[in-house]
């Protein structure tokens, strides 16, 4: 027990014992304590002794620790021979130990031999990389881009197509139900992914299913007042959860008793909603939440990442039967075969094939529809896999993703080719060194291995960097990639990392193998003897080939860019008919449940009046249909005197809009002839008028004039047509023509609630706050005033082209950059190699111009080959991707011309510098060197 080690001494000693293990520690500590005791006995002050003690500890630790490490690494016998520490290169050691030990080909020693080869190759690789860190960093960066792009794409692809929905048990036995049939209205084949409740009831009783469920997703208002939000909510039958095999994270799911018309309303929260709004507190069970038009008691929380069978996030789950009473306005839907609103999923019973289930479902479906003569008797039910995007036919965005994956793979190929070229060039430069190593006994396998390991290390490092960025920015990337979709975000980290690592290794092997093979095949004697002067031809066909491939890939990507950019421009240029910019759409939601169409109309009119005089507003109008949001028709209740039936268009029946005055001005829809609907038309007692669109005017009154014509709505008196409006888009950018007509709101044939109050002003965004404030003040009993620029409803439609254009542009420019760097470095290297040749030529009278042209023509030839190859591949690919484009031909010559020109220009620039250098070669200098 020592009297000299309080405080710091104790700490120092602890540290010491950590660093220095084993017998040495014991002896040293003992010595120090002994000497300390001696010093104290000799009269030295204790503090000084303690200081000396700690100092000794600190100074003794490093040499002893180094000693221990050294001991672990070295072979003492060899040290004895060498007389000093092990400082020789591993190659020497390798060679020495090979000659020292007699060769025995027992399996054990052969294994050891292989292990040693790998180990030496690895350390060689590391050392080589360490020698030129700048180059290593550059290659890592290039690989990071290649692997990273693929990792990100794979994440998105995985989420959309490969990975089954989270938390679902045996997802391959779960199927979606689709009906393929010939549509009544247009006569064309179509696929129905949404069904009626009676259809669902038919399927529910089949034994081929172990369970079935119906659900309907929508946006509903949660909460009220200033905290109210519209969030994704799904109505689902209680059977959904057990059929999917899911367990709640908290509380319970709703059961069959909760899922009846008269049950107490209960709700289950989505996991992320629970975290966001209730901070994950367990006491959320029992809280009451206003969702849509009813108050529900929270009974549980769904597990993390659970979104049912679709991709979109779900914040609240409601029992279908109970909630639909309110949200679908009654219980009519239960018996109506015209009310399409539920998606249906089913779990196959054990041993049942999808085909058998499909046949049974088809039979029972046709039976159920038998009493409708217009319904397609050949309608077929399909049991489809879960992994399709929401609508059952993959959305345009989802279809772009596999192409993008192809693009990413091309970029990877490009980076591999580039890296291979770099490594090959370097291997050529180090011919002599390699030859020396081979002469000294390094096996061919080892040389190849070293090269491959080097490349794999680089690509793994690149891949790791890329994955880190992809994961950290993963949500950001996915948001950009598939922006707009409200996903339960979350990348399956393990799969992405695994995929990236595998890809990185593959890329590294590919990029490193070729140069390594070439390098190892060197003619040893020749390389040792040679002065380093290149062969007369100078460049291998392999390197040229790699460069042509890089150029071709760049060209293909740039063609993609061009096509998508043009698509985007065409899409934006589509004349929608109306002018969405400058319009704000206001939606009102009253407190206390849905009061009926008439009360809603009154509320909206009040709101419109309240906005009068608000600065910044040019005009306002109320409408029962908002383009890109909803549409209405009244079918047979619309008649035109003199016509037995109305003409049909492929887009369906005539669409009706009930509007107030100023509608056409607010929407920016032109009146071609006659006039629009005015305030004075919009009164109960006013004479009935209507405005029709061009298509309707043309189809219904082909011979005469639509103006003055008569429309009879629901047996009301004749509405005189007073104006013809231009056609406009209803829902989508790509639409066929349809008939539409406009009547005053007061004369609407049914008491529909308004769909929106439209406000036009020069700057809708700045109107948001004042409008909300004014409406909240002026209107009582309003729960939510929602405002949204009209543009926002339309912009998502451009999404896929914007996505394509952005990504292709990013990748295309990247590819171009990498390819041109490759071209530059190769030509520069060659010019350096061929200096003697250039010098000789120059001495023999070749002018500067000729030398420059020599190099330039080289570069241009390669680029030209690349362009030709790239255009060929690009045209083929574009033709296959035809339906992803909009308003532009896959063979658009403008794109091809621009891309080819760009490529050639860049090649000229890349070849320019080496060419200029070539021209500056001084013949005297090079000849002297010979």
């Amino acid at each position: 027990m020592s009297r000299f080690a309080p405080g710091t001494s104790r700490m120092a000693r602890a540290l010491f014992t950590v660093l220095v293990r084993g017998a040495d520690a014991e002896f040293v500590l003992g010595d120090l304590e002994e000497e300390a005791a001696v010093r104290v006995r000799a009269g030295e002050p204790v503090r000084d002794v303690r200081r000396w003690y700690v100092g000794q500890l600190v100074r003794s630790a490093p040499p002893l620790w180094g000693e221990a490490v050294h001991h672990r690494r070295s072979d003492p016998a060899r040290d004895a021979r060498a007389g000093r520490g092990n400082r020789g290169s591993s190659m020497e050691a390798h060679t020495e130990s090979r000659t020292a030990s007699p060769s025995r080909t027992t399996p054990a020693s052969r294994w050891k031999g292989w292990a040693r080869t790998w180990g030496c190759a690895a350390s060689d690789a590391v050392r080589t990389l360490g020698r030129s860190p700048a180059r290593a960093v550059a290659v890592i960066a290039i690989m990071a881009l290649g692997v990273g792009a693929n990792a990100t794409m794979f994440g998105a692809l995985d989420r959309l197509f490969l990975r089954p929905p989270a938390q679902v048990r045996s997802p391959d036995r779960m199927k979606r139900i689709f009906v393929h049939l010939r549509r009544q209205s247009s006569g064309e084949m179509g696929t129905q992914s949404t069904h009626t409740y009676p259809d669902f009831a038919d399927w529910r009783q089949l034994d081929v299913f172990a369970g079935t469920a119906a659900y309907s997703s929508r946006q509903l208002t949660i909460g009220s007042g200033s905290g109210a939000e519209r969030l994704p909510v799904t109505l689902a039958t209680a059977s959904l959860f057990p059929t999917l095999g899911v367990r709640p994270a908290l509380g319970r799911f709703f059961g069959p008793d909760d899922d009846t018309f008269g049950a107490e309303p209960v709700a289950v929260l989505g996991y992320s909603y629970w975290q966001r709004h209730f901070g994950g507190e367990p006491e959320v069970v029992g809280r009451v939440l206003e969702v849509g038009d009813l108050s529900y008691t929270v009974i549980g929380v769904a597990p993390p990442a659970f979104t049912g069978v679709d991709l979109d996030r779900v914040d609240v789950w409601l029992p279908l039967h109970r909630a639909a009473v309110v949200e679908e306005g009654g219980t009519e839907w239960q018996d109506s075969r015209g009310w399409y609103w539920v998606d249906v999923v089913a779990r196959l019973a054990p041993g049942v094939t999808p085909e058998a289930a499909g046949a049974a479902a088809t039979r029972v479906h046709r039976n159920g529809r038998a009493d409708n003569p217009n319904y397609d008797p050949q309608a077929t039910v399909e049991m489809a896999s879960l992994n399709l995007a929401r609508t059952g036919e993959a959305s345009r965005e989802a279809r772009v993703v596999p192409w993008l994956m192809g693009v990413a793979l091309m970029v990877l190929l490009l980076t591999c080719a580039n890296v291979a070229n770099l490594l090959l060039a370097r291997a050529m430069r180090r011919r002599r060194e390699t030859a020396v190593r081979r002469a000294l006994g390094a096996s061919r396998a080892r040389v190849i291995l070293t090269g491959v390991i080097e490349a794999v290390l680089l690509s793994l490092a690149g891949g790791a960097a890329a994955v880190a960025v992809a994961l950290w920015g993963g949500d950001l990337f996915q948001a950009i990639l598939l922006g707009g979709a409200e996903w339960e975000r979350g990348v399956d980290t393990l799969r992405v990392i695994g995929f990236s690592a595998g890809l990185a290794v593959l890329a590294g092997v590919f990029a490193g193998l070729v140069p390594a093979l070439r390098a190892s095949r060197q003619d040893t004697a020749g390389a040792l003897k040679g002065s380093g002067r290149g062969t007369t031809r100078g460049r291998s066909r392999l390197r040229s080939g790699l460069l042509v491939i890089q150029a071709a890939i760049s060209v293909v990507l740039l063609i993609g860019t061009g096509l998508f950019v043009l698509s985007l421009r065409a899409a934006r240029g589509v004349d929608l008919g109306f002018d969405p910019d400058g319009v704000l759409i206001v939606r009102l939601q009253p407190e206390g449940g849905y009061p009926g169409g008439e009360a809603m109309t009154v509320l909206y009119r009040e709101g419109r009046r309240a906005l009068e005089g608000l600065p910044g507003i040019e005009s306002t109008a109320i409408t029962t249909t908002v383009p890109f949001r909803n549409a209405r028709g009244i079918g047979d209740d619309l008649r035109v005197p003199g016509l037995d039936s109305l003409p049909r268009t492929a887009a369906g029946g005539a669409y009706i809009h009930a509007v107030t005055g100023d509608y056409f001005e607010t929407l920016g829809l032109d009146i071609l002839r006659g006039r629009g609907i005015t305030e004075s038309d919009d009164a109960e007692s006013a004479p009935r008028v209507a405005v029709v669109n061009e298509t309707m005017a043309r189809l219904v009154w082909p011979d005469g004039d639509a103006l003055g014509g008569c429309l009879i709505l629901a047996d009301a008196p004749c509405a005189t047509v007073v104006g013809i409006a231009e056609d406009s888009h209803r829902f989508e950018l790509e639409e066929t023509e349809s008939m539409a007509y406009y009547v005053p709101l007061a004369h609407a044939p049914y008491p529909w609630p308004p769909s929106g109050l439209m406000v036009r002003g020069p700057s809708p965004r700045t109107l948001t706050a004042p409008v909300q404030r004014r409406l909240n003040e002026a209107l009582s009993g309003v729960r939510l005033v929602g405002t949204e620029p009209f543009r926002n409803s339309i912009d998502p439609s451009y999404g896929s082209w914007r996505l394509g254009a952005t990504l292709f542009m990013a990748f295309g420019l990247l590819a171009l950059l990498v390819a041109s760097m490759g071209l530059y470095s190769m030509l520069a290297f060659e010019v350096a190699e061929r200096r003697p040749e250039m010098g000789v030529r120059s001495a023999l009278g070749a002018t500067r111009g000729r030398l420059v042209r020599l190099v330039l023509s080289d570069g241009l030839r390669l680029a030209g080959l690349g362009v030709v190859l790239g255009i060929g591949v690009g045209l083929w690919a574009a033709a296959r991707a035809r339906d992803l484009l909009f308003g532009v031909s896959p063979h658009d010559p403008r794109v091809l011309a621009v891309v080819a020109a760009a490529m050639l220009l860049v090649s000229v620039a890349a070849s320019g510098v080496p060419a200029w250098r070539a021209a500056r070669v001084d013949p005297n200098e090079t000849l002297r060197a010979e």
Partner: protein
Amino acid sequence: MSLHVGEFEQLILFALLRLRDDAYGVTVRREIEARTGRDVSQGAVYTALNRLEERGFVSSRTADATPERGGRRRKYYALEPLGARALHRAYTEVQVMASGVVPRLAELAESA
């Protein structure tokens, strides 16, 4: 097999020679410190002694623990014939090089 010994190792070997049976960590360190004025760390001493032992120049034996050392043992070292030979050679080399020029060396050192 090389008989080369570094300068520090020479001091240690001389210390062992002087201390005879009494050469262990503490005594070797104090001997060097007392005679040459060099303040070396205990760890460095042991490191050097371990290396010398590996090469067969010295040998070691452990002795019983004492309470004064906190219950830790002592490790004694002794000079081996091989080590003596190495030390002798090293010393002779220096002597040969120094023969006759020491006065001049002293003069040069003083002028610095």
